[in-house]
């Protein structure tokens, strides 16, 4: 039971529980926002953020709760934002799809698929200009790799040897559409990156250690000018595309497809690697933290009416 295992477990479990609690609260209508849960795919954010420092940046999509938490983004800020409260990380103006925590290096997530990829590449350009050895990781789904800006960004990053790790969380679906209906070569994502000059690694078993190790190697290289890299982590989304529930009865996919992934669940796997006392202590800490965050969100004030007009311009 290494320190690393405990650390990764804590992060994995914490995200899992936040997402589960979100799903539990959801039917109450207290959450004023769609939610795109990452249950089943937490390990990508956890593994990558584990090799990043506080001055590094991460960016992501509407499905960014996991990334936000793994990078150290505020949990109360996240929940309060879903509640539409003034204390939310966007002061109630962004909702679940637009989480941000500048102090923690979370650059603000965006809900138009792919938009975060060029933006994060810009952060990497700024990091290179600053020359301080900081790096950027940007998370996106398999669907985002079909947007032109994905290719444009990778080419630019390779050309300028920018310190950016492109992280594709390939869960095989864009909403309900499988990769096979969207890509002639579903296995071609890494190849496209390589053709543009971005070294790419595919990890298909969802192993948190394997992802972490690939990220570590890539990030070490880029801190000293080695340029960008891409990791394609194959994962599986357990819940609906958007919303709190499972959806195996909807016809577009079945339990059988999910089963092997549930058996490989990284939260359970790492839980099994911890001695029970440690695990219970970690779990208890997580529950207390979540309870406090929910209470904070519930008791926070709603935004004042004049907030509507604030911050249109800086």
């Amino acid at each position: 039971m290494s320190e690393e295992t405990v650390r990764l477990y804590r992060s994995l479990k914490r995200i899992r529980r936040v997402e589960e609690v979100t799903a539990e609260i959801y039917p109450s209508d207290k959450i004023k926002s769609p939610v795109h849960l990452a249950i089943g795919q937490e390990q990508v954010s956890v593994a990558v953020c584990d090799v990043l420092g506080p001055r590094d940046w991460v960016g992501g999509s509407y499905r960014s709760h996991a990334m936000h938490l793994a990078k150290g983004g505020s949990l109360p800020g996240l929940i309060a934002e879903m509640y539409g409260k003034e204390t939310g990380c966007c002061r109630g103006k962004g909702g679940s799809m637009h989480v941000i925590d500048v102090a923690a290096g979370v650059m603000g997530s965006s809900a138009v698929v792919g938009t975060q990829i060029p933006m994060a590449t810009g952060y990497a350009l700024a990091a290179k200009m600053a020359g301080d050895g900081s790096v950027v990781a940007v998370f996106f789904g398999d669907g985002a790799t079909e947007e032109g800006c994905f290719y444009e960004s990778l080419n630019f990053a390779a050309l300028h040897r920018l310190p950016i790790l492109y992280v594709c969380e390939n869960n095989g679906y864009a909403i309900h559409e499988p990769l096979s209906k969207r890509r002639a070569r579903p296995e071609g994502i890494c190849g496209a990156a390589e053709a543009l000059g971005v070294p790419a690694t595919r990890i298909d078993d969802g192993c948190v250690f394997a992802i972490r190790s690939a990220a570590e190697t890539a990030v070490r290289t880029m801190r000293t000018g080695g340029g960008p890299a891409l990791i394609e982590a194959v994962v599986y989304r357990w819940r609906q595309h958007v919303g709190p529930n499972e959806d195996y009865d909807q016809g577009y996919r079945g339990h059988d497809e999910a089963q092997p992934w549930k058996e490989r669940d990284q939260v359970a796997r790492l839980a099994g690697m911890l001695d029970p006392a440690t695990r219970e202590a970690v779990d208890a800490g997580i529950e207390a933290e979540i309870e406090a965050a929910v209470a904070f969100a519930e008791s926070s004030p709603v935004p004042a009416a004049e907030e509507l007009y604030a911050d249109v311009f800086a």
Partner: protein
Amino acid sequence: MSSPESRTLRYVDALREAFEQEMERDSTVFLFGLDVDDHLGIQGSTKGLLERFGPERVFTTPLSEDAMTGVAIGAAMAGRRPVHVHIRMDFMLLCMNQLVNIAAKAHYMWGGQVRVPLVVRSMVGKSWGQGAQHSQGLHALFAHIPGLKVVAPSNAHDAKGCMIAAIRDDNPVIFMEHRLLYNTEADVPVAPCEVPFGKARLCTRGDDITIVGVSNMVQEAIRAAELLAEAGVRAEVVDPISIVPLDIATIVRSARRTRRLLVVDNGWTMCGVSAEIAARVAEETEGVRIRRMGFAPTTCPTSPWLEADFYPNPATIAETAWAMARPDAPAWRPDPERARLAWQVQFKGPF
């Protein structure tokens, strides 16, 4: 709108019927875009079409709005009649280049040699945390560009009639559908029918003020007119139906009579459709009091307490109209309880 061969239909079902009838009639019509063929079928508006017309004519696409728009344009020039679907109008910002630089200009720039019979459907989101990037009514961006038609039907009847007219039109038509209209019902003809573009409809009659609504705001304006009627102000609500071409003559005629014009748009006012209507009326008439309402001049916030003030609603429309129609009377606003009934339509998933 009623006829013996019609029945009550939801907006979303009226759209579906339009596709079904047109695809049946004309084998060159096809329908594509993200998720058109999944089990939800764009809130039901494309449901069953895959089964009926097959995957060659009903298919999803990669997430590639820019190229897919170009594909739609090319296919249209080559003689097909594509209907391309976006689940949010916000995502059309990815394909402005193809729409503005090619679709709008093709017929003209290539000397009349080609036509672009293309329909681009897009939904406008509202409430339930849609927020900054899932709520924009961007019709003004398209209306600004010569060569694009822009249509925004406000009820199920016009949804069907406009869609059929759009599919039969030899020009690119930007079709704006407000998500909150999908469940609204109207009397819709059973047979294929066309609602012609460029012909506004008078939804209510009145002599005190003309209220022009766009898209969803037609419904809000009609509710406002009901509230106003109780206070003794008779509003004439005009639905232009199509923004391009715009039936300015009907609007001018009404405004000349009422001497007051309030334009309520489902978008920002700055350089918006409300600006165009106000400017045209100002150019063509004299002595008409003019006001505009639309999105607050901000980004759309997600928190419902902020979002409520982002949009015009029957209460604020009625209040504004009252102030215009009764400038010397004390300010009036509708009873909050009645107003609430009139406009608290909330969208709550599925996304």
